[in-house]
């Protein structure tokens, strides 16, 4: 049984992505007790799946290394992975929380030596690569995964494979009898940082994500650039693994659309501008390599404008003010053909591209109205600013479509709101 010590002065942080991690660290570095709950086997969330950040084009894992060092060094934070908050009841300063912890089948003895992975044969879809690839059923989620501890996929538990893994482990780290368990704890305040998920691209029927292999989403494209990603860091299109050079980016794929997400997802313009630079990075001055960005408005707000200007100056990148009407596929070549109208002066086009990337919209992973009655949701299911005197505070992309910098700001603010509550509790008890 997992023993967790938590009191009315403890802050519960739900979600171990950049926002949750930040909220937990900032609160803990103010001296507060924090319980950090992550539903995946390791912390890091979506940023761990990013190749680069805009606008600096730096590496997300650089900041993650710092945050992990902060986390490892901080004894005030208790981390639970593969754990989900199933119920939050109570009032500010006094919440009863139920947390369900799913079995990892690997205990803290694990040295991440990798012997179990070598032993098993079964493979499962790799969610870290958006299921574009397979991974062993005994796996370390990704290079920088923390806790640095393997996972046995439930699908092989009870199979010969699982026993092979167990046998291969010299350190009694594999425990196939682990059971799912639910713990009940008290906390004083809750920071909800469950983040976002990409909108289901298949629902955008005119773009045929479900019909044409060479129509992919921006998050999948991002994985392609990772040397440890599905294509080993090459921009190879799914249909025939040919290098994709003439690449289209479709903005507002699911966003700003009454048929899909009514809000603007904010990051997609910058994401596509960023991804358009990958083409130069990969192909140098190869004349065939080019990006075409189909947009309604380029929303490079505040100082992001600098980056927009930089990309505009790149003759490899073309901009067409148009929401693409639909996509068809050339059966012989597998190329995608984008149909529409450039609305700046009415030019019709039927443009052929090697690959089409949908700048996919953001929706909240957990709808605000599913958390607790005291939490108010906006039309898209994001957490609205807390008016009530409840102490469940949204952080990061659970509150709005935000870029990393704003998500971290939001998480830092949430940390203070939670601290205000637990400080009230402690002064009351003192």
């Amino acid at each position, binding site marked *: 049984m997992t023993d967790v010590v938590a009191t009315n002065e403890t802050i519960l942080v739900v979600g171990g992505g950049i926002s949750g991690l930040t909220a937990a660290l900032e609160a803990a570095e103010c001296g507060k007790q924090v319980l950090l709950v992550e539903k995946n086997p390791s912390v890091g969330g979506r940023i761990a799946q990013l190749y680069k950040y805009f606008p600096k084009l730096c590496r997300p894992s650089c900041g993650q290394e710092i945050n992990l060092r902060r986390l490892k060094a901080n004894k005030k934070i208790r981390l639970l992975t593969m754990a989900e908050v199933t119920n939050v009841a109570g009032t500010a300063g006094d919440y009863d929380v139920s947390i369900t912890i799913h079995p990892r089948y690997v205990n803290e003895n694990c040295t991440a030596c990798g012997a179990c992975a070598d032993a098993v044969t079964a493979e499962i879809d790799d969610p870290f690569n958006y299921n574009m690839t397979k991974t062993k059923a005994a796996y370390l989620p990704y290079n920088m995964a923390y806790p640095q501890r393997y996972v046995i996929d439930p699908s092989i538990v009870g199979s010969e494979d699982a026993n092979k893994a167990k046998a291969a482990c010299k350190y009694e780290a594999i425990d196939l009898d682990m059971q799912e368990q639910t713990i009940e704890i008290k906390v004083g305040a809750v920071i909800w940082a469950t983040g976002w998920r990409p909108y289901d691209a298949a629902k955008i*029927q*005119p773009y*045929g994500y479900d*019909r044409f292999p060479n129509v992919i989403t921006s998050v999948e494209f991002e994985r392609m650039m990772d040397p440890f990603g599905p294509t080993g860091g090459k921009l190879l299109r799914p249909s025939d693994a040919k290098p994709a050079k003439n690449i289209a980016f479709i903005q507002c794929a699911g966003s700003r659309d009454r048929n899909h997400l009514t809000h603007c997802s904010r990051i997609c313009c910058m994401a596509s501008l960023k991804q358009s630079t990958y083409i130069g990075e990969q192909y140098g001055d190869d004349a065939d390599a080019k990006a075409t960005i189909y947009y309604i408005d380029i929303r490079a707000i505040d100082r992001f404008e600098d980056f927009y200007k930089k990309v505009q100056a790149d003759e490899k990148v073309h901009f067409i003010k148009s929401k693409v009407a*639909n996509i*068809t*596929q050339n*059966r012989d070549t597998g190329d995608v053909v984008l149909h529409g109208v450039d609305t700046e002066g009415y030019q019709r086009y039927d443009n052929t591209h090697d690959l089409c990337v949908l700048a996919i919209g953001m929706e909240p992973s957990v709808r605000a109205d599913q958390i607790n009655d005291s939490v108010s949701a906006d039309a898209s299911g994001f957490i609205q600013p807390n008016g009530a005197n409840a102490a469940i505070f949204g952080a990061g992309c659970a509150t709005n479509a935000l870029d990393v910098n704003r998500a971290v700001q939001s998480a830092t603010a949430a940390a203070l709101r939670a601290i205000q509550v637990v400080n009230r509790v402690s002064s009351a008890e003192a």
Partner: protein
Amino acid sequence: MAKKEYSFYPGCSSERKASASNYMVSVDAMCEKLDIKLNEIPDWNCCGASIGYAEGGELPRHVMNARNIALSEQNNPDQDIVATCAACWLGAKETADRLDASEQLLADTKEVLKEAGLDIHLKNETPIRHMVEVLIEDIGYEGLKEPMVKSLEGIKFAGYVGCQTNRPFGIDGESFENPMYLDKMVETVGGEAITDYDKKVTCCGGALAFSEPEKSQKQIKDIIEAAYDQGADMIVTPCPVCQMNVEVYQDQINKHYGTKFHIPVTYYSQLLTVAYCGNAKEAGLDGNIIRAKQLEEIAAK
């Protein structure tokens, strides 16, 4: 199976010796086998079709449809209105929606109908549905299989859904870009539905086949070409306008484009009727200008 009853709105093209009379014939036979009773709306009138807008305008067009709805409410109370023609279905449903949305429009319409001693209630009192919805939702693919006697095995169908059966309302759970129900129907009765028929929902020009023949026939050419490309033996459709446009202009298209089109264009109801052991006449196959020989052969067995 308990008898299912509906208030039926056949529409002009399905009248005797009208352009879709054979559609009607096969629908009757099909419903017979499926134990569906269609109670024709007495004294129904034309829906105005989409093209009616230009001269008819807004209110008169809605009045035409409102009259039918009113007659149905009056004579076939508590029965869903079912149409077999896309335009009829669309026109009636659109009017119903619009009247429900605008009190002004509803009031005006009521005022007009009063002249004929009619009244209309709405707020979805009488759901307006396409025959295809009845088959899929009320009978279900399993149900459609039951009366099946003959398989349409060996025939390749291009399921041409067209526009107005598909947009703006469409069939529940189907996508506007790639609806699958025709293909599923074809497979239900043992036929082969060609996969990735990318002109499935392309417009045939509709009424503009009359006024803009060249432009429309360009569309029709693509629709037929794509069917051939995928090796279809015949085209199947749920819409009288589509059926006619795609079938009757093939000679002219051949002249104009030097193509050699000669592909039958059938109705889903004809397929089902044949599968349900109806003969060629019952299936209205004698109504096809380009004979659907393979179907006739199966029907003859």
